[in-house]
């Protein structure tokens, strides 16, 4: 097997009490059991309740220090994390590496040691290199929460996607529901994390895009058995957009990542749009009540038509709103995972 599952973190939940949280870090969803995902979903429900109150703030993380360290451009994810932390009354320090000592040549390990010495307890990190948060977790004494690393993983996005699907689909259950993810799968950490959580949820998952942007996925799909988490379903890979969209319950567009695109993967943006853009005509193949998702930022007119992005079936702004609640839930759960509770079953 040449295309292995993404580097899996060690399972700390062995012998763990169901319904409780045992992870010191969250770098990918691949370490989560289904009952832990359910716990995150339930906790997110409560956080949504807080967001609906006149005062959208609780003192749960009062005085705890959350630092965001972003080596890649981001607005929504960073602001979402920082809003989430502030809603829980945490103190937030925000590092944009473009204006930090990183430009003077400071290494990731040095930066993290420095932030820890400055009092960081929870480190929310985005990095362009796949696996960078694992290195961070090795040297950092607190909690690492991955805000996206390279092509590898974007766990909070996968969890907010799952939450939004459960919220919008009748019955709130994904078992047997057809989910089509269309676009630049190759470079997408969102797709990789979603494969874990959506197959765990029992969805009928289809990945679709041009062959050059699906490279390796077919072998991964063949070998897929859920990796570290038993009971995961299989997923499908196709270059035929009509096969992917037919009778789908959920259609998710992914951004064509121009900044990661090597020459030759796509003839042109226009060519991609002509063959794969999520437009009204193609979406008529999906179920009438199907929802349309996109993790943002969108290239409107490339992977998604502008009228689709703002149509009644689009839940893209719900994804953004739910992102704050999911991140509140994860910050809350991680902040409680003390040394005593991690790696050792609770009393």
């Amino acid at each position, binding site marked *: 097997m040449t295309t292995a599952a993404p580097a899996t973190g060690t399972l700390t939940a062995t012998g763990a009490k169901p*319904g*409780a*949280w045992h992870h010191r870090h969250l770098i990918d969803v691949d370490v989560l059991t289904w009952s832990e995902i359910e*716990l995150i979903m*339930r*906790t997110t*429900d*409560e956080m949504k*309740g*807080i967001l609906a*109150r*006149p*005062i959208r*703030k*609780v*003192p*749960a*993380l009062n*005085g*705890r220090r959350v630092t965001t360290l972003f080596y890649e451009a981001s607005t929504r994810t960073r602001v979402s994390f920082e809003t989430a932390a502030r809603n*829980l009354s945490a103190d937030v320090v925000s590092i944009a590496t473009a204006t930090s000592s990183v430009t003077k040549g400071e290494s990731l390990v040095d930066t993290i040691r420095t932030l820890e010495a400055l009092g960081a307890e929870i480190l929310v990190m985005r990095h362009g290199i796949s696996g960078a948060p694992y290195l961070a977790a090795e040297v950092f004494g607190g909690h690492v929460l991955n805000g996206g690393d390279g092509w590898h993983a974007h766990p909070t996005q996968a969890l907010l996607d799952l939450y939004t699907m459960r919220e919008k689909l009748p019955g709130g259950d994904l078992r047997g529901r057809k989910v089509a993810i269309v676009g630049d799968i190759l470079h997408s950490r969102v797709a990789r994390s979603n494969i874990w959580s959506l197959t765990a949820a029992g969805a009928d998952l289809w990945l679709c895009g041009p062959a050059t942007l699906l490279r390796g996925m077919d072998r991964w799909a063949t070998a897929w058995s859920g990796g570290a988490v038993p009971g995961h379903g299989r997923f499908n890979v196709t270059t035929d957009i009509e096969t992917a969209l037919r009778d789908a319950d959920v259609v998710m567009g992914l951004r064509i990542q121009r900044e990661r695109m090597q020459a030759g993967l796509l003839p042109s943006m226009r060519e991609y749009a002509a063959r794969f853009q999520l437009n009204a005509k193609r979406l008529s193949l999906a179920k009438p009540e199907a929802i349309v998702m996109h993790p943002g930022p969108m290239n409107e007119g490339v992977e998604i038509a502008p009228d689709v992005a703002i149509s009644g079936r689009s839940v893209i702004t719900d994804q953004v709103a739910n992102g704050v609640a999911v991140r509140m839930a994860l910050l*809350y*759960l991680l*902040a*409680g*995972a*003390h040394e*005593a*509770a991690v790696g050792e079953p*609770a*009393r």
Partner: protein
Amino acid sequence: MTDRQIMTGDEIRRAIVRISHEIVEKQAGTQGLVLVGIQRRGVPLAQRVAEAIEVHEGVRLPVGALDITFYRDDLSLVAQQPIVKGTDLPFDLNGTTVVLVDDVLYTGRTIRAAMDALIDFGRPRAIRLAVLIDRGHRELPIRADHVGKNVPTSREEIVHVRLAEVDAEDEVTIARQVRSTETTAAGS
């Protein structure tokens, strides 16, 4: 661990009826009264108080549920984040007299957290407190307005309130802790 019963189902019922009368008497009626149960066993208790008031006053008071988890002062001390059970206050708190209902009053920290949580939802005219058991050992300047039963305890003891809605039967027992744990949730 030896369990000793300190209230039977009948005694719980009578205490709730008495508290329901006291609440109405203190308010001189039911105008502006709302009941808010603290998760978990305060919620069914608040429902029972509302039912008792309905029997003798003919008025059904609004009942809400309050989860105080996010307002606890020991979140950085407990070994694991407590599981949140849900807040549901389907009414406007402004100008109301809120009667907080809980099963056991112990250190007072739960009530402190509950008052902070309530005030984030609005500005009640007054907040009162009704508890089934007051076991003493307050760590904060808080007292109950309505008490089902005062039970002198030692800190090594645990009071278990069991209610049919949650535990399939009604009774209150007291037990001596065999080993000391750091579970701050005991009897809260």
